């Protein structure tokens, strides 16, 4: 329960910042319209990311944290994936859109999420690794099932808002661009709604009765 109270206090502080954000524009601009059309692609992208991260974490296990491949994959800065997709796309295909953005988002964020999950998994040596794969696989699945809500609660707001650079590069008006545009034009009402929505998602994703476990 303590964790939930602390979390709500953080969200309340975020709401206060959004409400009383200082600054003004020389000539005030009206807030941008909310990109409703981006909700479904963002939801699908986040769903796909969740699924792939869990599958990879289950297959790789805690050993992923020591993997050179994962380290190399993580070392590439996120915008570089966007630039690479943009540069490699044949001119005749026309400008990229949501598909290219989803691909860039997945390839950029997957290694970090796999590492997050792998580091949070309990150690498997000597047991259950000694009992063989038949027993260690269900052990890992169970651990991931308990871990997933915490992981989603911690990372969901980040995924929904941190895609700004890829959106800018790949010509996609998404949730990250919307958030940034509202900060830029000081749309305090819109930002407050954003914080409330993210707090709601956090509440939905965060596990109940954490203290009882």
């Amino acid at each position, binding site marked *: 329960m303590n964790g939930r109270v602390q979390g709500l206090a953080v969200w309340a502080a975020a709401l206060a910042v959004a409400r009383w954000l200082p600054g*003004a524009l020389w000539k005030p601009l*009206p*807030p941008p319209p909310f990109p409703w059309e981006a909700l479904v692609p963002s939801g699908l992208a986040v769903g796909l990311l969740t699924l792939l991260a869990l599958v990879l974490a289950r297959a790789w296990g805690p050993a992923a944290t020591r993997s050179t491949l994962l380290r190399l994959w993580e070392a590439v800065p996120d915008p570089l994936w966007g630039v690479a997709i943009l540069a490699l796309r044949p001119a005749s295909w026309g*400008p990229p859109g949501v598909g290219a953005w989803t691909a860039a988002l997945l390839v950029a964020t997957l290694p970090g999420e796999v590492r997050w999950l792998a580091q949070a998994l309990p150690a498997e040596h000597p047991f259950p690794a000694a009992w063989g794969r038949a027993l260690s696989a269900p052990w890992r699945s169970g651990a991931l099932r308990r871990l997933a809500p915490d992981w989603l609660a911690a990372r969901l707001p980040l995924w929904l808002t941190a895609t700004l650079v890829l959106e800018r590069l*790949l010509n996609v008006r998404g949730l990250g661009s919307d958030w940034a545009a509202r900060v830029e034009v000081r749309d305090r009402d819109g930002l407050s709604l954003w914080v409330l929505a993210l707090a709601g998602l956090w509440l939905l994703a965060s596990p109940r009765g954490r203290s009882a476990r």
Partner: protein
Amino acid sequence: MRRLRTLLGLCLLLALPGPAEAQSPVPRVVEESFQRDPGPLDFIRGEGLEQFILQALAGDALVGLDVQGRPVPRLATSWTIHGHALRFRLRKDARFTDGRPVRPEDAAWTLRAIQATREASPTKRAILANVTVSLAGGDVVLDGPKPAARLLVELARVPVAREGAPGVGSGPFAPARKGTTWTLAARDHFLQPRIAGFRFRLLADDLGVLEALQKGWLHVGVPPARRDLRPPPGLHEVHQAMHAQAVLWSRRKGVLPWMARWREDAFPQGFLGGRVRPSRGLWPETLGHPPMRPTAPLGARPARLEVHYPALDDMVQKALMALRARAARDGVEIEPRPVETALFYAQLGERRFETACTVVLFDPHPWAVLDYVEPEAPMNLTGWTHPRLPTWLARLETPEAPAWRELQEAWAADPGALPLLDLTSLTWVDDRLEVQPSPLGLYFTTPGPCGWRWLR
């Protein structure tokens, strides 16, 4: 048989694809990009560059401006000036995109709605401040404190909407939005557009615009400001002198004369890829003002100066770094300090700064500089005033009025602001597209985009 083979060979030759130039058909629609979402088309509340581009394409103001910035007929076929009053006669053949004819009542409604709506565009509200709007004998009559010549030019920025429908205009292109793409299709209009239309996509990132230009996904676009960047084959550069400057204000006495001295040799040849040139005078020469030199004597040399500027404004940052290097030769340390854009403008508005620098885009007429000198004007950030100011302001009826000279001399003796750089816009345009460059930009003149055409 030989003749048959020759004939077959000739047929085969004709069937082969020709050179690449002949293969690529002339596009119908001009592909363009917006840096930010313009929001819904709204002739009353809409504000910002992207929204004004949409309005210029989808709407008609009473008057337009030609490439030299002179007023020309648009919705109004003619106008008369009586003192400060302007009387407009509207054309009969103008129609809104929904097919209804444009009436004088629509023009009057639009202007009054801008005046009465608190959330209306600040730019348009400033243009129409204290202006009375009336209808007389089928004409639209405007009267107010501003010189009629000034109001006439400013009205080119106020397109007319249909009464009760702020999103419906009568312009040469009919707008439609789908996702992040705006399309504007040419329609039957008195300016007779010669291209089929525009497609604007949202491309917020400079790098994204550059990639799109290089891959042929855009026909018109502004490349990033890099010194050695050249347009790829198929595109050419279009330079347009703009009514824009990077301007410096200082609330500390004696700073601007030193800055005026340093700006003379602070900026190397080809600085910022030729998009700028060092300002010579105090007010923009593109607006018709003579190059004035500050006549205030150099005072005590400041030891250190902190200059605030909007964060992420690369051009201002580079200009300040060049100025810093020059000032260092005189033993003065300039410390450029980036401030988040909205916080920066809040500081300017509340006069909480010592020295500040930002880019200013002037309205396209000589009176635009009065924002520096009029009390409470948005660019009078240092409280500049003069005992004879009210007399001069009352006598600035025309751009040639002698009072301008007296005002310029007073300003040069104690300037409230100093321009560092005059800005030039650099745009890459498809070789097959003929456009009409102007200090107002590509979209804000009449006929403007209606005069563009694809070259065959």
